[in-house]
Structures are given as structure tokens and as C-alpha cells.
């Protein structure tokens, strides 16, 4: 078999320029695909990680109807303690849940005693919130970032800190209206300033959940939402299904489902960008397949045409049609393999260079994001297998034609 591969390799070297050009084309295709997958994939992973690990969690549970009214942060659609207990019971029987955090979401007026603006706030249990959104603490760009929150202190978004010239340690007042319409105001100390990120909630402030209850004069343990972190983000679909099944059985007094469960992708518009990235990745893969298919088929058709007499000779000698087919298919295989190896090598080196270069870019209002392309072995194996498989596929038709040639006609060919 080694000898057959060597014969095929020498046949490829017979037309060096053509083989080099075809290999170059395949290499460019592989490089384009791997670089796109690595950069776009890493960007997507970074953004999704940022959104889920510092803000939305992997999935959220609300009282039915809350999400469609989320812009107004309706306190009337909070989950009562007994509802929270039911959710807790479901969590206990659901595998794959790493942590969960209850939140009270509220809108308030924020004043530094000189100026006033509106602010959206999340009242959270710091320990549970950190377990659920571990990257939240990394968004503290000013102030104490050793711990998330202390009672009586708040984390404010960067925009408000800049706009109202508020810094950590300053005293501010929050004024909020509770669900009965009465107004309450409490003084807080600014513990830190949070970096704003893209997406809903990306410019929210944070306060202790007990402070939120005190501000809103909530006596019981009702909450607006439960944020859930999964052990494996890839199991989101299955976990959503399980939770929907379990919580779907819980109905309100009208006999309608009491809860709604949403994955992060249904809560953040970035999921549309993520889908677009996936679509573009697919498009690049289709392009790669087309490049390999057309270039290898072209070169193999030419190879067969130029070697008709040779095919006649080996057929006359008694080479079985299947062996003639094999000879040409191996040539296509080697072309694809060479392109895949070169493309992978160039891509890996380029990715390493890009990682060292630490190129920064802006996305929305976020600046200074570092482009850190990563490529997985799976992506490399996928690209290589696709290239080699398509190369073999592309050489099949010319190889089949060669194997079916009539030896007499082939020997007469000039």
C-alpha cells in the first residue's frame, strides 16, 4: 500500500505547479476557515461567557408574564415565597444545576444630593450571586472588589458614576416606589463602580437583597427572578426542557402555568449575533467545501485527461478497474491531506501570533476587548476531515471515469 501511495505522490509531483496551486487554494481555504472559527468563535464564547457569568446566568425563572413586562420592572409580578419553595423543590430533583441566585429587580431614583437620575437595580444575596455569576465581581472597576456587596452599600453602573461624578465612598440616596405606590428613600454608600457591558442588565446597579426589601418595604421573601448557573452550559437545552416540564405542572389560580423559564439566549439580543456568527461559520465551511471540491475535481479531471494512454497501458497490463480508481482517489486524498496539514500548521501559527499580539477591539459601548482567538482540536479535526473527505469525493468522478475507460480507446488516444 505504501508503494501505491508513493506512486500517487509522484504522479502529483509530475505537475508541480498545478499541484502547488491546488494545494495553495486548499490551504487558503483551511486557513480562512480555522481563523474565522477561532476569532469569531472566541469572540462569541467571550461575549456569551460575559453575559452569562456576570449578568444573566445560564437561565432564569420568573413568574409568568414578567419577562414581557421586564422594561417596567413590575413588582406586582414578583414570585411569592411559596412559589420560590416550589422552584427550590424542583431544583433539588434536577441534575446539572450548579448554583442559583434570587434577585429583586427594581427601578429607583438615584441622587447624589445635587443631581438625580433613574437607576435600575438588582437586589441580590452576595454569596449566591457570586456562585451564580462569578464574573460579576470582575466588573468592579472602581472601589472595593474583594467582596461583592455589604448591606448599606451599592454598586453603581459606570455611566451613572461618570454622569453624576459619583465615586466609591460617596453617600447617595435611593428613592423607590413600592407596589402599593408609597415612596421610600434610604441613604447608601457607593461601594464600587461597575463596568457596563452589552445587553439587558449590562448597565444595572446592585444592592444587597435585604436592602432592596427594606427600600421596597417588602416583608416576606418574595423575589423578581431566580438566576441559574449550570454545571455544563451545553446542557442548557436539556435542563430548560426538564425545568419547563417540572415547573409547567405548577399552575396559578386560573389554571395557567405559574412560571416561565428562559435560557440566556431568549433574554439577550446577543443571541442573534451569536446565531449570525454560527451562520457565517457555516457559510465559511460551505465555501471551504466548494473550494476543495472544485479545485480537486478540476485537477483530477486534468490528470485523467492527460494520462489517458497511461491508463490504457496499466489497464492492458491487467490492472483491475478498482485499482485504477484507487490510484486516482489516493492522489485526491493526498492533495487534500497536504492542504489540510499546511492549512492547519499556518492557522495554528497565526493564532499563536494573534494571541501574543493581544489586539484590542470595541463592541457596542465596550472598548478594549482583547481578541484572543482559540482553536479546539475538534475544529482542527473537523476541518481536516472535511477537506480530506471532500478531496476524496471530488476525485471519485474522474477516478471512476479513468477506471471505466476502454483500454483500446485509451491506448489509441493521442
Amino acid at each position: 500500500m505504501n508503494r501505491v501511495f508513493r506512486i500517487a505522490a509522484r504522479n502529483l509531483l509530475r505537475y508541480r505547479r498545478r499541484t502547488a496551486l491546488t494545494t495553495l487554494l486548499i490551504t487558503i481555504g483551511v486557513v480562512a476557515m480555522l481563523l474565522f472559527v477561532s476569532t469569531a468563535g472566541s469572540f462569541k464564547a467571550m461575549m456569551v461567557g460575559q453575559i452569562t457569568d456576570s449578568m444573566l446566568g445560564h437561565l432564569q425563572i420568573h413568574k409568568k408574564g414578567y419577562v414581557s413586562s421586564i422594561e417596567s420592572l413590575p413588582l406586582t409580578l414578583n414570585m411569592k415565597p411559596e412559589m420560590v419553595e416550589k422552584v427550590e423543590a424542583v431544583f433539588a430533583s434536577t441534575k446539572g444545576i450548579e448554583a442559583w441566585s434570587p434577585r429583586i429587580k427594581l427601578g429607583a431614583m438615584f441622587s447624589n444630593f445635587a443631581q438625580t437620575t433613574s437607576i435600575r437595580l438588582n437586589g441580590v444575596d452576595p454569596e449566591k450571586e457570586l456562585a451564580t455569576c462569578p464574573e460579576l465581581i470582575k466588573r468592579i472597576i472602581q472601589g472595593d472588589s474583594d467582596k461583592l456587596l455589604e448591606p448599606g452599600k451599592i454598586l453603581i453602573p459606570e455611566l451613572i458614576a461618570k454622569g453624576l461624578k459619583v465615586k466609591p465612598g460617596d453617600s447617595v440616596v435611593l428613592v423607590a416606589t413600592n407596589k402599593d405606590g408609597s415612596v421610600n428613600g434610604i441613604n447608601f454608600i457607593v461601594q464600587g463602580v461597575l463596568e457596563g457591558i452589552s445587553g439587558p442588565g449590562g448597565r444595572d446597579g446592585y444592592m444587597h437583597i435585604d436592602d432592596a426589601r427594606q427600600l421596597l418595604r417588602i416583608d416576606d421573601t418574595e423575589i423578581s427572578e431566580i438566576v441559574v448557573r449550570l454545571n455544563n452550559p451545553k446542557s442548557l437545552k436539556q435542563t430548560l426542557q426538564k425545568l419547563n416540564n417540572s415547573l409547567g405542572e405548577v399552575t396559578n389560580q386560573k389554571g395557567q402555568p405559574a412560571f416561565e423559564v428562559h435560557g440566556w439566549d431568549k433574554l439577550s439580543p446577543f443571541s442573534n449575533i451569536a446565531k449570525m456568527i454560527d451562520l457565517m461559520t457555516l457559510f465559511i465551511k460551505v465555501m471551504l467545501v466548494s473550494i476543495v471540491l472544485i479545485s480537486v475535481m478540476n485537477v483530477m479531471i486534468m490528470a485523467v485527461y492527460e494520462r489517458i494512454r497511461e491508463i490504457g497501458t496499466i489497464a492492458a497490463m491487467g490492472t483491475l478497474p478498482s485499482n485504477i480508481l484507487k490510484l486516482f482517489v489516493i492522489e485526491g486524498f493526498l492533495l487534500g491531506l497536504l492542504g489540510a496539514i499546511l492549512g492547519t500548521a499556518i492557522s495554528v501559527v497565526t493564532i499563536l501570533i494573534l494571541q501574543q499580539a493581544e489586539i484590542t477591539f470595541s463592541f457596542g459601548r465596550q472598548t478594549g476587548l482583547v481578541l484572543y482567538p482559540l482553536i479546539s482540536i475538534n475544529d482542527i479535526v473537523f476541518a481536516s476531515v472535511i477537506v480530506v473527505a471532500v478531496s476524496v469525493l471530488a476525485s471519485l468522478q474522474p477516478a471512476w471515469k479513468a477506471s471505466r475507460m476502454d483500454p483500446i480507446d485509451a491506448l489509441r488516444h493521442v
Partner: protein
Amino acid sequence: MSLVEASQVEKTYLSGEIQVPAIRSADFTIEAASFVSFVGPSGSGKSTLLNMIGCLDRPTSGSLKVVDTDISQLDRNAAAKFRGQHIGFIFQDFNLIPVLTVAENIEYPLLMVQNWSPEKRQERVKELMDAVDISDQANKYPDQLSGGQKQRVAVARALVTHAKLILADEPTANLDHDTAYRIIDLMKKMRDDYNTTFIFSTHDTKIMDAAEIIYTLEDGQVIQTKGAGNHE
């Protein structure tokens, strides 16, 4: 049992709607270890007859047995296997594979057709290279050889599989006279050494004299004009 037995073999081609006879009622036999030539002008049917004996083509009618096998019964794969097993070919244009060295060209049928082990292949190739006196060119490529050397390689390649029958269609047409005679002498020596039957076609009268049996083809008729039991 004769090596080749032709009985009432006919071959006609269709040219549009007209049937053109190439071989008409050919009756002949060729014994093992013969040195036979088919002679005749261009278009007389020499190549057609060689192609049929070589299982590259089938008779339109009649019976053609080669090595006791009715070749008209063989399908594409069976014919290929039969050729690989029993028949060797020598071509007018040598038809060596340009990317392979002399040794590799000779080895090719053992590798791709008969699937010999590497050790046996090496041994057999060396034997054949010595036999045709081309060992000193073993690592050269065809484009580094003269016409005569190329045809020696072709002879060795045809013999390497222990073929019972070697078919050579105008093997000397692209060679000068001296080289042509040397190739014919070599073929005769190989017949003597390996007991292999050689059938070659030619229209060169001096070359055809080297044949022990001559069949002359004229307008598709095959007539024995030299050798035992000729009808001249």
C-alpha cells in the same frame, strides 16, 4: 492443447450504419513457445487481431480461445484478471510510466496486478533486469533512456509476471534498424529462456523474417505464410 485457438473469428465495426469487416473467418492456432508475427499493411487488421488475442477486444462471432479460455465469455474484470495472469504487452511507443524508474516500471505489474510480496518483487525485478541487460539503468527514469533501452524495459515488464503470452504491436516501429533487430533478438532469447510465446505485428519485411511463423493479414483474411503447415 494450443495456446491460441481461433475458429471462424470475425470482427466487424460499425461506421455509422455501415458494417466494416476487420477480421474475416480467421482460423489459426498458435502453440506455446512460438515466435509468431502478424504482418500486413496498415489497416489490414493486425492490431485488431492482437487486441482480441490480448482480451482487450472481443470477436463479433466465432471462437477465440487463449490459454484454454474462451475470451468472449470474459467480462471487464475477468478479462483484466486474465490479462494480468497470462498476457504481457509490449507497445510501439514503449508506454513506460514516466514517474517510475526502470526498476519500478518493471515492478509495477507485480505490485498493482499480482500483488507480490516486496522481497519476491525485488528478486524478480532484478532477474528480469539482468535478463534484458538493463540493470545499470535501474534507477533512471524513462526520459533518461534511449528508445532501445525503453523497449528493453518494456520487454522485462511484459515478462515479469511469468506471462505465457507476450503481445507486441509494432514493437520496433519507433526504433532504428540496428536497435530493432537487437530488440527482436532479445525477444527471441526471452522466448528461449522463459519458454514464453511471442506474437508481434510488423510491416517491416526484414523484421518479420525473424519470426518462425508468419500470418499475413490482407483485407481481414488471416493466412499463414511461413512456418509449419503454411498455406503458401
